């Protein structure tokens, strides 16, 4: 799953540390999400989207894997 977290964070001029503190997660989690190494839970995804006043679809882009039919 791709995401626009890094872009949104830059737009709001926030550091990873600041965003992590506001969301109640570790800085490493923000880093992992930005790198696409970790997909957040639905709850955290909602929290991130609401934090930036966007929708989940605007923040996270779900790509259907090749083996799963749409």
């Amino acid at each position, binding site marked *: 799953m791709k995401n626009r977290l890094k872009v949104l964070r830059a737009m709001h001029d926030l550091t990873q540390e600041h965003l*992590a503190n506001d969301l*109640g*997660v*570790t800085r490493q*989690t923000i880093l992992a999400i930005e790198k696409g190494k*970790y997909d*957040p*839970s639905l709850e955290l995804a909602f929290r991130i989207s609401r934090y930036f006043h966007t929708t989940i679809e605007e923040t996270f882009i779900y790509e259907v894997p090749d083996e799963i039919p749409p």
Partner: protein
Amino acid sequence: MKKAVFYFLTFAIILLEFVLFGWAVRVRAPLLSVASLVLGIAVIYIARMYVDEVIEDERTQKIQERTAMTTLQVTWVALLVFSVWMIIEGAGIRAPPEIRRLGIFGFGLLLTDIAMVVVFVLLSFYYRKQYGE
């Protein structure tokens, strides 16, 4: 409490536990070692509640879950292999007493392995109920 202070405190407690363990062995006082272990764990647990920064979240929990599961699987297999090997070694009729004791120890290990499976199954039933089955 800052995260770094907590980690330093944890490290200091672990170090102290090793020293106390060594001393307890020397003076043959198992109660001292056990009491210090329980106290040490309690202090770390309480100190963890006073950390201002986030040290655990859903990602770290997921990492811990996967690590725990893999550790459990590896331990199961390793215990099973060692216990079966020890039981067979110790079961020989002409085996010397030391080797026979190894067989008894193997049975102990096998029972521990079975106990782990039983606890795992019971807990999985509990969590299945909790997550809506």
